[in-house]
């Protein structure tokens, strides 16, 4: 999956340079020339893997926007790199205090810029992989988890799970116990064999103490029984991917 980066920059030459450099590296780029425009981009598609944010902009500046992003659950997990002019280095300290992951001094130097972007993306938390056959349930899970600012990837079959785990950064797996072809339990065992540190949450239709014990013994990090609230699942996920 191509990583998506939003660049917020009011100065057109810098914006063109930054966008061109990253596009050539294979990233999907969205651009915004002010904060209001950036908000529209995020509202239309909140799945942004990184934001490159200019500090000094008219009306709402980058620092104010950073504070908004970090205090809004839906956007708070998106890493942000701040862009600043050399003489505005005091704003950098404030940006880092308010949750920016890194900063770049303009004019950007392509090699430094690319390296900082790659590093920031590596430090991103990754996506939540939801393995569920029922499309309605999957939709509810995706919507619930997505609202908490996690990027979700979903699939119904175990062969898709392996492809996704090999090609993408996954922070946690949420899997139904009942799946076609392979049980959630078997999937858990295989995931833990190959990716022992990857948290797995199994979701069961009904409670069975014996099943719960077996699942936890097999390495599940959490076990949820339906019906559960949105808060139940999002809290478990948040605590496991910290």
């Amino acid at each position, binding site marked *: 999956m191509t990583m998506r980066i939003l660049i917020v920059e009011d100065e057109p030459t810098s914006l063109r340079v930054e966008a*061109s450099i990253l596009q050539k590296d294979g990233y999907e780029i969205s651009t915004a020339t002010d904060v209001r425009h950036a908000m529209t981009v995020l509202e239309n598609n909140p799945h942004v893997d990184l934001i490159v944010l200019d500090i000094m902009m008219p009306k709402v500046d980058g620092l104010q926007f950073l504070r908004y992003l970090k205090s809004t659950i839906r956007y708070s997990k998106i890493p942000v790199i701040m862009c600043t002019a050399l003489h505005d280095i005091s704003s950098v300290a404030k940006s880092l205090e308010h949750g920016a992951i890194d900063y770049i001094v303009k*004019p950007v130097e392509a090699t430094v810029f690319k390296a900082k972007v790659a590093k920031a993306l590596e430090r991103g938390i990754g996506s939540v992989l939801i393995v569920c056959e029922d499309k309605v349930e999957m939709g509810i899970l995706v919507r619930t988890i997505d609202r908490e600012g996690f990027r979700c990837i979903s699939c119904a079959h175990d062969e898709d799970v392996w492809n996704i785990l090999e090609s993408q950064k996954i922070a946690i797996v949420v899997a139904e116990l009942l799946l076609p072809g392979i049980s959630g339990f078997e999937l858990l065992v295989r995931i833990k064999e190959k990716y022992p540190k990857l948290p797995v949450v199994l979701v069961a239709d009904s409670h069975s103490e014996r099943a719960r014990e077996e699942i936890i013994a097999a390495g599940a990090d959490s076990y949820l029984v339906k019906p559960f609230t949105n808060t139940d699942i999002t809290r478990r996920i948040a605590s496991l991917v910290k």
Partner: protein
Amino acid sequence: MLVFDSVQALKTVDGDTKLLGNLLRLFVEEHEQLLSAVRESIAANDAEQVMFSAHRLKGALRTLGANRASDFAERLELRGRERQLDNVQSCFDSLENETRQFVRTIADFSE
């Protein structure tokens, strides 16, 4: 300090001469508008607009390796930030002269 530091500009664009050529051509097209924004904000005695318009022009100039011109833009930006607009006209004149000299210098590169 160079009118046009092409080495720095090429570093900025990762050695992509085609991209740099395009950016320079766009700057040639847009520089009058950018200068006008600074000129008008000075005429209106609007310190905040002096700061933003000079900052914008500085960003473009610095990205393109126009170090001499960008220094004058930065001076104007700081004057706007500090709300000290007395006698900024001479600084703007220098900015305008240096920007025009930069545009003449890059004409060959951008063609």
